[in-house]
Structure formats: structure tokens, C-alpha cells
């Protein structure tokens, strides 16, 4: 019998503890102390240090960054205030518009693939089979390797002369000529997405696996008896039970994917013809390449509203969800 602690017992215990020190054992509180003791005051007081730290560590750089995007700032020079000039410039910049589209496609496709494959992987690893623990550890490998290193390995694999992927496909007779994985917009973006998915999927698998393991077994049994087949068990038991983890994981995945730099920088550097840039690589090109810090930060910054909308919507939905 699973001994679940009755909440009632806990509250009673706490009550006892609270009542234990009779009031006359302590000296009476002064007016200030009494005011501070009030939960609504004390609560804020206690989160204040953390809040302060957040403001200093996150708020200040954030505001600084916003300010910089409004300057025509170049490296080593004080910039002049130009309002939304950088953004207007960006909008008329064809490469930037491509980049917006690329980022959306890259993020959306990547995240969807990660969710689908991650969930599939987690479901497979959640089954009992031999060497299960080995595979559960093994699957983490891509996530552990520094992304620059793995990107370099993939670059080598995509190489037209030495690359193992084209060679293997040719050896199996699946293609006749070598595919130039990084040579054209569509195929290059696909290649990038593959590496990105490969790299971050372990995080999805492991998180979702952990979530799957918390799904009560008797819900599956109840569903089985109620007449649910495997698919409807998945929809009615598995998915709702791991929903919150799935949302969080997707959220993080979206943020990480959208701000991925190393893989794209190593694989295509935004080429060919600046067609595979995402925000981070374009920002790098503007800020560190051309030395236009204001414009570069403005590029990164346009990621913010997108992320903000996604995060806010997700969290809002989650808070409203009664289950």
C-alpha cells in the first residue's frame, strides 16, 4: 500500500508547532518588527535580494541592450541616438528579411522534429528491454559534446569530398551523385536542422522520459479496461500527463533553437549568398564582422518579441490550466 502522507496530518503537525511556543515566552515585538512580521511585507522582503540580483544581472544589461539598438553605435565609438533607425534599416535589408524567415522555419521545424522524435525516443526508452540503462546514458552523448566540436564533425560528414553521408547513400545505391548538403538554401537549411535536432534531442528524450516515468500505471490500466487501444491511451493518458513537461521542454527548446549559433556558423556561416542566416549569425556578422554594434544588437533584439509572445502565451495557458 503506497503510504501517501495525508495532508491533514501535516497541517495538524504544523499547527502544533506554531502553537507550541506560547506567546509569553518571547518579548513582545516593537511596532516596526510587527509591521515587518506581516506576511505580505515579510514575503516581499525575503524575495527582495533575489529580485535585486535579477534586476542587476538581467534588467540592467537588457535595458543597456535596448538603448544600444537605438544608437548608430560602431565599435569603439560613441553612437548617436537614431531612434528606431536601426530597425528601419533592418527592415529594408533583404538579408535580414530572409533571416527572419529562416529563423522561423529553422525554429519551427527543428522544435517540431525534436518534440516528435524526442517523444518517440522517450516512449521507446520507457519500454523494458535489455541494456535499457546503457541506451538511456548513451542517448545523452550528442548533448554532452561541445556544439562546436559536433558541428565540425558534421561539417566533415557533409563534406563533398570526404563526407561519409553522401558516400554511404551512394554505396547503398540511394543516390547517384554526391549531394552538396550545404550548397543551396533549402538543402543547407535542412542539413542545419538535422544537426540541431540531433544535438538537442537528447534533452527532449531525457526530460520526456522522466515525465513518462511519473505517469501512474493504473491510469493506463483503467484506460485499458475502459476500452482504450494504444493510440487512445497515448492521447488520453500519456499526453495529458506529460503535457506540462512537454510545454516546458518545448519552451526551452524554442529559446535554445532560436538562439543557436555554433552549428550554423560552423556549417554554412550563413551562406550561400547569406541565405541561411538566423538572428544569431547575422548579429555576429553585423556586430563583429562589420563592427556595427547597434545594428547587430538590434538584430538579436528582434528575437525578443517573438520569444516573448511564445513564452508569455505558453505560461499563460499553463497557469490557467486547472489540471
Amino acid at each position: 500500500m503506497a503510504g501517501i502522507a495525508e495532508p491533514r496530518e501535516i497541517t495538524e503537525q504544523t499547527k502544533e508547532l506554531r502553537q507550541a511556543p506560547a506567546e509569553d515566552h518571547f518579548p513582545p515585538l516593537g511596532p516596526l518588527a510587527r509591521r515587518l512580521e506581516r506576511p505580505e511585507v515579510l514575503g516581499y522582503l525575503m524575495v527582495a535580494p533575489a529580485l535585486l540580483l535579477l534586476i542587476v544581472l538581467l534588467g540592467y544589461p537588457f535595458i543597456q541592450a535596448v538603448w544600444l539598438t537605438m544608437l548608430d553605435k560602431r565599435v569603439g565609438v560613441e553612437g548617436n541616438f537614431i531612434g528606431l533607425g536601426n530597425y528601419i534599416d533592418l527592415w529594408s535589408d533583404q538579408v535580414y528579411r530572409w533571416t527572419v524567415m529562416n529563423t522561423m522555419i529553422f525554429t519551427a521545424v527543428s522544435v517540431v522534429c525534436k518534440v516528435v522524435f524526442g517523444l518517440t525516443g522517450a516512449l521507446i526508452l520507457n519500454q523494458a528491454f535489455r541494456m535499457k540503462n546503457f541506451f538511456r546514458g548513451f542517448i545523452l552523448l550528442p548533448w554532452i559534446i561541445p556544439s562546436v566540436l559536433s558541428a565540425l564533425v558534421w561539417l566533415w560528414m557533409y563534406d563533398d569530398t570526404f563526407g561519409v553521408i553522401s558516400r554511404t547513400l551512394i554505396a547503398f545505391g540511394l543516390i547517384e551523385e554526391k549531394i552538396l548538403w550545404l550548397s543551396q538554401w533549402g538543402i543547407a537549411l535542412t542539413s542545419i536542422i538535422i544537426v540541431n535536432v540531433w544535438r538537442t534531442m537528447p534533452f527532449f528524450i531525457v526530460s520526456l522520459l522522466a515525465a513518462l516515468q511519473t505517469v501512474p500505471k493504473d491510469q493506463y490500466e483503467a484506460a485499458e479496461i475502459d476500452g482504450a487501444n494504444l493510440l487512445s491511451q497515448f492521447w488520453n493518458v500519456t499526453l495529458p500527463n506529460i503535457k506540462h513537461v512537454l510545454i516546458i521542454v518545448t519552451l526551452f527548446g524554442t529559446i535554445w533553437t532560436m538562439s543557436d549559433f555554433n552549428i550554423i556558423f560552423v556549417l554554412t556561416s550563413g551562406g550561400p549568398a547569406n541565405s541561411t542566416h538566423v538572428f544569431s549569425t547575422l548579429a555576429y556578422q553585423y556586430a563583429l564582422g562589420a563592427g556595427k554594434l547597434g545594428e547587430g544588437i538590434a538584430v538579436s533584439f528582434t528575437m525578443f518579441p517573438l520569444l516573448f509572445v511564445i513564452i508569455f502565451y505558453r505560461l499563460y495557458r499553463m497557469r490557467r490550466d486547472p489540471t
Partner: protein
Amino acid sequence: MSWKRFFTATFIAFFMLAFAVVAVQAAPLRLTVRTVPVVAAQKFLKTIPKKFKKATGIDLKIEFIASRELRRRLITAAETKSGPDLLMVVYNGAITVKESLADVSEVVGPLSKENGGFYNMYKDGGFIDGKWLAAPFMTTSQVMNYRKDHLKQIGENPPDTWEDALRIGKKLKKAKLAPWAESLGTHVIDPSTTILCILWGYGMRQVSNDGKKITLDSAGTRAGLRFIKKAYKEAWPKGVIQWKTLENNQTFLAGKTGMTINSPSIWWKSSTKKKWANLYKNVGFSLVPKGPAGRHCTAIPQYLVLFKYSKKKKEAKEFIKFMAQADMQVGFSKRAWMWTPTQKGLASRLPQNEYYDIMAKQALYAHVPGWPGPASKAGSEVHQRFNLLAMVQRYVQGTQSIDETIKQTVKELRKIYGVN
């Protein structure tokens, strides 16, 4: 505040100030350069602080970083106003941060008149707004590398013109020998510079000599673009469209390509391992081919920049002078395979062989991306943002016609240069 406290505080403040002054005085001159892969040359660099101290009594500390880190270091140092006193930059790096750099004309001006003066390209990236803001440090030429054995087999001499190169390339391909290949992927070195060699040779000029007019849309540009597309279609491996800067070295060493414009690194590298012994014997250098508009090429000019924030400007200038000495320039070049001096006249003191000969000659034809305009941020930006490379890529891949790709690039350049 009691008097006692006041005195204590004053004393501490004074002590700290004194300490800071002494610390600055005692700190060595800091120099950051790239790591040199050639062992003997790297050793030579490491002996420099000792020699410099002996010659001038100044302490010097050299920090070595990977070459790909140089750019990041340059931007951070300029923006945060902290870092080394002297930093190595390549191409047009100095222009990007020109406001943060100290004028070194005082030492570089006289040097530019010694030993036949600097190679012309040094002005393109170091002589900015009428001042020397970057001191020439070392030269790395980019030359045409070829396989002597393969050319012999098809009965050809190394190419003198681009048309020669194309003819040879087609022959090599037909004979199933290691083909001609030029990188066309996205990178600031090989692909960006190779296309300039060709386009310049055919007469492309992105901007007028005074930098006041975009002159990209020209017959020369079209001819150059057509040549590249032709070479890509008829001579080069299809994969070059995704090659960055290492692939031509790797394929050349693996015997998969046999003619390419590159720094002498292939030649040096082939000397380092037994398995490449045969290749080493057969690597030949020739000048980058010329086109109807003459012989033009890029090289990798390396400079030292002195930051305005430096507290060691005098010492830094001493070092610039010290490094420009013939002994240092030639001493380093002799050991470094891929490096040659910055002054034309010193070529005669290099080892007398075909390789150094070509390297030294090649530098005479070299320009920095952004040429023929005067050193400008716009020129640098066009290089860093791959506008010209993208123009080529679009045309070669057929995503745009020759008119469209030139038109789009002209538009981009006009915006970057802020002129018509």
C-alpha cells in the same frame, strides 16, 4: 569621521594610487598575435621578448591566440578599452576600429621609405585617413599552387592568364587528374579573396579610387562573373560551392585537387609528414593568373595595431621599429615558410628558391579587399558581409541572372558606402 579614520583612509588611498602607478610602470608591454603552426617560426616568436629586452630594456609579454580569435579580440579590445597594447590584425581589421587606434605614423612613416618601402597593399589596410593606424608586421602571400607532375602529364606550364588556368583545368578534369578548384563557400579568407583575384583581373572595381562612386556595374564585372561560372561549370568540382577555407588544403593534400590559389600552407604542410613526401616534391608555385585588366591578387597582410588606451605607446612604437628590422623580418620569414617580410627590398635576403621567389613577387600584385577605394569602413564591411561573394554565389548557382545579381549588389554597396 574621526581624524584617525581620515588618516587611515587617506593612507590607504595613497598607497593604492602609488601601487597602481607602480603596477602600470612595471607591467610589460603586451602583444597578442596568432599562433604560428610552423614550429621553428613559433619558437622564433617566443625568443622575441628576450631579444627585445636586450635591445631596448623594455619588458614584452606575448600572448598567442588562435587566428580565428583575432577578430573577436579586436572588437572586444576596442569596445571595452582593455586588452593588449599591440594586437595583430589582418586585412582591413584596423579600419573597423580606427577610432580606437593610436597614430603610429611617427614610426611607420620612416619605415615606409626604407628597404624599397612596404608592399602597396599595406596602405590599403593600414594608412587610414592620412595616418598610419596599423604597422605592417608580416606578409602571407596567396599564390597559385599546382602539381608539377600533373601539369607535366598534360603537357602544360603553370597558368599565366585566367584563360590558361581554365584550359589547364579542363584538361586536368578530362584527364581525370587532380582538378583545379577554388573555394566558393562562405568565408572571409579563401572564397572571398579568390573571387577578388579573378574579378579584379577582369576589371571589376567595386568603387572608384576616391571611394565616391560605386563602379561595380561594369563590363569587367560581367566578364569576371562569367569566367567564374564557366570555370565552376567546366573545371572545378561541384562541391566548391560549399568549401570554406580549409577544404582546398585538405583536398590538395589528399590528392583530390591539384591546382588552387592558397597561402603556401599546403606546401609547408606537405613537408611535415612522410605520407605527403611525393606531394611535397611536386607542389609548385606560380603567380596568381592575370586577366585582361592585369594581374591582381590578395594576400594576407598582417599588421600590429596600437590601441589608444595603451599606457605603453612609446614602448609599443619601439617594438614596431624593432620588428621592422631586416634581421627580424628575414629571420622570421626564413623559418616560417608561409611568411615573407613587409618591405619589398628585403626579398633579396630571403632563401633563394622558386617558392620564396614567387611569394615575394606575388605580394607586389596584392591588394586588400575594398581596393581600389581608400581604406574605409565601407570597404571592410563589404568584405565581412560577403556582398561580392554572395553576388558570385547567386550567379554561379543560377538563382539570379548576371544583371539581377549585379543590380542587387550595387544597391547593397550604395547603402554601405553611402554614395551613388
